[in-house]
């Protein structure tokens, strides 16, 4: 693998790992606070799964660049993260958390299906491991999409409000990074425009069936190097203990 290709793949893996890490962190914030016990358990499980996925993706970054996953997670500043702003947003209400999870799960399902055929074998192996786990998430969040979208006027209103915030942000999941074209040529990573079409083909009808409608089409953030202020507060919380004593042995 030449240096350009290696750098492009590492950058894409890092962005994918960062997305999973932030979503896991936001979901974990519900532990002990979810509306009912079953959902508390379910969301803690989902968070743990996403953290497991992040760990695998960071491991693949390490194989390519030698960067220690623990350092990547606990000792980067906000500007060095490549997570999408959608997963950095505060957890909001239950509708916001479930709709974000749904939009992300649909994205991850489509992504993993394609990555399972990646020409870079470690990526294909990782995706094959994660696909069935993700299926449980997707079923769960799909059920909540319908339950809240078709529930009461209040639950529908909250879902629509969540969609109005999330929809412009979701596009960043598919925004290009330098080197993506190389990855696509090699068959290492799917074309993100095609991925976006596949995702839209699933989520738009599902949103409509759940009684959710037109939403703002304002252009959202594009560059994954640009973050909202929410990432700073998230990192302050997530990294506080590790940074209190850099030399501590766990």
């Amino acid at each position: 693998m030449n240096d350009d290709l290696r750098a492009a793949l590492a950058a894409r893996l890092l962005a994918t790992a960062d997305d999973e890490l932030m979503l896991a962190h936001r979901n974990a914030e519900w532990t002990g606070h979810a509306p009912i016990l079953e959902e508390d358990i379910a969301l803690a499980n989902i968070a743990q799964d996403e953290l497991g996925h992040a760990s695998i993706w960071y491991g693949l970054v390490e194989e390519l660049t030698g960067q220690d996953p623990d350092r990547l997670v606990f000792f980067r500043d906000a500007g060095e993260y490549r997570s999408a702003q959608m997963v950095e947003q505060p957890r909001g209400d239950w509708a916001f958390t479930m709709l974000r999870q749904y939009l992300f799960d649909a994205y991850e399902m489509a992504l993993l299906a394609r990555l399972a055929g990646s020409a870079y074998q470690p990526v294909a192996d990782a995706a094959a491991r994660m696909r069935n786990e993700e299926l449980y998430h997707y079923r769960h969040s799909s059920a909540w999409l319908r339950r809240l979208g078709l529930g009461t006027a209040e639950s529908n209103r909250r879902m629509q409000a969540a969609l109005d915030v999330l929809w412009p942000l979701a596009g960043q999941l598919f925004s290009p990074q330098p080197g993506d074209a190389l990855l696509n040529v090699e068959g290492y990573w799917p074309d993100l425009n095609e991925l976006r079409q596949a995702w839209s083909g699933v989520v738009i009808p599902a949103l409509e069936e759940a009684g959710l409608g037109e939403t703002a089409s304002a252009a959202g953030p594009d560059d994954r190097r640009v973050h909202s202020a929410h990432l700073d507060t998230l990192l302050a919380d997530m990294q506080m203990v590790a940074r209190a004593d850099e030399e501590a042995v766990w």
Partner: protein
Amino acid sequence: MVVKLSPSPPAPPHSGAQAVPQGEGNFPEPNAPTSPLPAGEGRVDMAAANPTWSEGRLTLTSDAVWAALHEVMDPEIPVLSLVDLGVVREVTVSGDVVTVTMTPTFSGCPALVEMQRLIEVRLLALGAASVAVNTVLAPAWSSDWISDEGRRKLKAFGLAPPPVHGGDVQIMLFDVVRCPRCNSDDVLVRNTFGSTLCRAIYYCNRCQDAFEQFKPL
């Protein structure tokens, strides 16, 4: 709604396969008799499997390592060995150096590190000079790999075993689940997520009590 989980039924006095004490400083002698394994899948002839001393040097066999791994239990399901769970993929013995290749169940399973430690402790006790436990992701672990013996043990432990799905998602997610206590299929799924990543919560209408299932994956 709060599901009241009944306390887990006590582990059955299952036939043999008592875990060898694994506390450090409590290692059995390399040639100490090993407790017999249960009949059934993965049964190993213990007489042939025991490590032997040849010309003053311990000879470890692959069979002896597999037999020892039959005694290393899943930290979250203490009646199920790692071999019955299907996570041990390969054993290589070179002199007194043992390499075990295993595959994780769920990506985020926190028991993986503990499983690796338990394998190392057990094989050092068996007489290995060094133990390497490698983790591979491919082929991806499937709950189909849980042995028949493992499925019986799960059920006896009070965990409904996962349906064998052969990769078919429809079977994986929608096959009939039976109550591990009364075998009734009059059950309701309460939560596809449970107390560990690998468990779902059901309710048996006949027993009028909750039970857990080992989730198909």
